[in-house]
């Protein structure tokens, strides 16, 4: 059952920010994650601030420099189906199409998706773990088959649940954050916080700040992108492992690009090691095999998730091969 809270639906971003600076205030966009968290008592809320009357936060459009601006309230379905995104940022459209189920994609927003809370079952259950302010991570010694193989900092081994964020990282998107002190544009890679920095938060958002839009830079000629997700069920299921790629190919070689893993770490995990192997190289089978090997080189699997190592190797190999073929 939901706790008792005040519900407000402000008409401007400034008003929303005012509300959000009060104690126990929570942003409500599509509510698909928020309401579940409140119902399961993952955290409380004294005030729920709906941002749904903020029409400026809707819509997807091209920016003057031929980038794309996605309003925080754009639904995942809109991202999935948008023509420009499908044409230029295919990997993002693919990521969006892999999220949850059609109903959840219709209701869920991109802002909510990148701000969603972890899915660790201890966290969502009645366990008072470190991330909730307790002093123990139950997953390290418990059921950790869906937990991370990178970046736990030995504190918390969640994986970031979003299928969209990895693609945004691959495209080097920026997140516009609005707060009392005005706006700032945060590269999405810097938007996420590792447990070692602060185990109780997932993003850099401060109290009173909201995400208003996401900006994709103009696409570089020759970019090929994709998103691959492995999961147990075809719909309505989070990634066991995933990889978002955005590579710029010129003259048969990888000129630049990013490789980002999902289901791997507490944040969308940029695999610099893979990038290093492939950049400047032709994507032949030798390079691809080496890239896949190095991807998991420094992985630190837990007792029950070492299967993720061959899994990541396999999908990186598969996806790079597909990109190479075109």
């Amino acid at each position, binding site marked *: 059952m939901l706790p*008792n809270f005040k519900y407000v639906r402000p008409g401007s971003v400034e008003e929303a920010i005012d509300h959000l600076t009060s104690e126990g205030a929570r942003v409500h966009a599509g509510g698909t994650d928020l309401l579940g968290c409140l119902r399961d008592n993952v955290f409380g809320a004294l005030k729920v601030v709906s941002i749904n009357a903020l029409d400026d936060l809707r819509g997807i459009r091209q920016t003057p420099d031929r980038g794309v601006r996605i309003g925080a309230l754009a639904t995942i379905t809109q991202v999935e189906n948008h023509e420009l995104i499908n044409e230029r940022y295919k990997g993002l459209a693919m990521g969006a199409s892999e999220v949850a189920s059609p109903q959840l994609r219709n209701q869920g927003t991109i802002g909510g998706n990148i701000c969603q809370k972890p899915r660790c079952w201890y966290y969502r259950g009645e366990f008072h773990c470190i991330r909730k302010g307790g002093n123990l991570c139950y997953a390290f010694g418990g059921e950790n088959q869906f937990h991370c193989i990178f970046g736990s900092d030995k504190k918390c081994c969640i994986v970031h649940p979003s299928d969209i964020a990895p693609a945004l990282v691959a495209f080097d998107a920026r997140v516009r954050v609005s707060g009392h002190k005005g706006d700032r544009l945060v590269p999405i890679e810097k938007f996420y916080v590792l447990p070692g920095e602060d185990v109780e938060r997932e993003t850099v958002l401060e109290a009173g700040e909201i995400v208003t839009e996401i900006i994709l830079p103009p696409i570089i000629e020759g970019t090929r992108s994709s998103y691959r997700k492995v999961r*147990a*069920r075809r719909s309505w299921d989070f990634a066991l492992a995933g990889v978002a790629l955005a590579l710029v190919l010129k003259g048969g070689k990888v000129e630049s690009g990013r490789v980002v893993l999902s289901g791997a770490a507490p944040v969308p995990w940029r695999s610099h090691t893979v990038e290093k192997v492939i950049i400047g190289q032709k994507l032949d089978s030798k390079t691809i095999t080496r890239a896949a090997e190095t991807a998991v080189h420094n992985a630190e699997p837990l007792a029950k998730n070492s*299967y993720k190592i061959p899994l990541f190797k396999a999908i990186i190999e598969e996806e790079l091969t597909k990109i190479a073929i075109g």
Partner: protein
Amino acid sequence: MNDQNFDNKNTSFSYLESRPLHIGASVPRLDAYEKVTGKEKYAADYYGENLVWAGVKRAGVPHAVLRGIDFSSAVKVPGIVRVLTHEDITGSNRQGVIRKDQPVLVNDKARHCGDAIALVLADNKESLKEALDLIVCDFEPLPGVFDSEQGLRNGAALVHEDNADGNRLLKGEIKTGSGSDAYKECDVIVEACFQTQSQEHAYLETEAGWARLLANGKLEIVCSTQTPFRDRMEVAEALGLDPTLVRIIAPYPGGAFGGKDGVTVQTLLGLAALHSGGRPVKMWWNREESFVSGTKRHAALMYYQLGAKADGTLHFLDVRLYFDTGPYDHLGGVVLTLALEHAGGPYRIPNAQLTGWAVYTNNPIGGAFRGFGVTQVTAAVEQVMDMLAQKLGMDPVKLRLKNATKRGDRSCVGKTMVCSNGLVECLETLSKHDLWKQADDWKSSAGPFKRRGVGIAAAMQGSGYGPVVPDYANAKVELTSDGKIRVYCGVVDMGQGNASTNLQIAGSILGQESGQMELVLPDTDRTLPSGSASASRCTYTFGNALIGAAETLKQRILQRAADLFMASGPHEMALIPGSVRHLPTGREVPLFRLVKFFQDSERIAVHHFRAPVAADNIGVSPEIKLHGLPHTLFSFGACLAAVEVDELTGAAEVKRFLAVSDCGKVLNPQIYQQQIHGGIAQGLGYALSEKLEVEKGRILTTGFSTYIIPTASDVPEIDSIAVEIYEPTGPFGLKGVGEIATNGPLPAVANAVADALGIRVFESPLTAERILEAFASNGRQESSI
């Protein structure tokens, strides 16, 4: 709502047009319209004025002595009506089907996390939640038992100190022929250990009900149940009431699958209603509570040895089964007994040593679940059959055909199979199907990084209660005062469609269309005792009783009409929709006229049917006999799964599925197919993705975002073929179809994965993770089935 006259309405059908109800016709199920349009009133839909919400404080710990319950702050919450504990129960405070070992409210210790400690009554849900959170249980933690083999070891913590057999709920032993000694006479032996997981029923409608105490002392409980008549006795005994003062009303459950075979909310609701000051009480578990407190398919550990002669003739079977029954019997002993009876599959095996233990643990409660123990052992025996075929270099269909039981043969427990048996027809139909004939082509056309395999499995499923517990039904049919035919269903329709089939049976006998028919769903005050909706028995047992009642009423109607028309006898009369016709003259009398010539007592016909039981004494212990061994009636099936495995991710995807089943004659092809399809979908979830994560008795997967049941996009195209062998004892030749289809998917998929990869995964579900691990440990190229 009128106090004395409960609004358990007679359902008639809001079809646009009335439909003929012939046996064998593919009539859409008569509940479909109401369900799809949201009109059907489920137990969860009962509210009413001045309602009290009842909720349960759960233990939250797997094993602990309850030293005290402090609810002093809880009762101060505004809107709280009462807080009740075991001290408020005047009856036995125990429930259970065979062994009554489960407290309604814990009085001594918690034995699993879902145990009920206190019952709170409140004016609204908000106060209820607040009060539940404020109740403090003083627990002294005890070491727990979380694994069935461990539970049997010396020194294991005891779940029930007063049980003479320690943590052993039931041990079953069956020896046929020369038992284990026969292994010496085998040319080949295969050996394996299988582990199958617990499975959640995952019905749409979680456990729910509504109750009230009338001024005349009658306790009325409307609930989502498979067992209204048994519930009445259980509630009365646990609460110390006269059973005739308890009325159970059972609307259509929104799914049950065995999870509502026995008491869930009933006794708690009854207790609440006794203390609510005459106000109606409602209880509705949320999904987490349903996961934590509801029953599960038993997790099983199964050791198998199967031996054969060089020509493939099965000769010897040795099986040891460990079933984790959780803290309470529920139906654990019966489940184990069915597992033992089906441990050798539908084959002739002359020498067998079968041993099984149902073990108490502090895990969630093991209980009834579609397939009922047969699902687990079928997974094992059908995989060792494939391993044997491989070792013998024999075609797996041929090995099965060679050993298939035929009518008159003995099953692995030595029981002579007297019922119709279409196993051979099922296997032959499968072997002639394109999916089998063209399996090699299909496998060799796998795309890059994919491997394909085709696996088969055969199965049988006993139905009914076995030799001791009487398996009976009492049907009642009425010619209503306005000339309609009203069927009183004594057996719950939890979604299988048997209520519709009942109308079809009565309608076809009485010559009526759906527009002339009415239905009364189970209600201990209005319908007659007819046993549980379980064990693939519903239409077999109730249908036989119904034929008797409908025939009696038919004779009465025809006779009275013949008398009125001064015809030479009822043979000149025929029932047609809405009327009786005098065939020689064509004159007709509408039923609503004719009924005026009936006395009230004549308008109702009843008939009792008791299912036949095995006459042969196969020498098992009386205890095992009591738990249901052996059965007399069996359904059979063979199925095929075409599976594609992603070499890179380990993910197995079922591309096509074929099920050939012998469940006797088909009364309604649509409903039959729905049962087969549903069973397969549930079986595929069990095979591939459904994995209840339980850590020291605590379930981590308490919702559908972590407990992965298949969705529409996960279920492949299914071909379902019925081999319609007439069963002489069945109504119109029918046997049970409710469970058989659930048993095949896991072994068929496991065999297909082994066929694709050359590696067998012995633990279910066959998740991508396990398949990859098996790959990693066996090497990709090596073949070592």
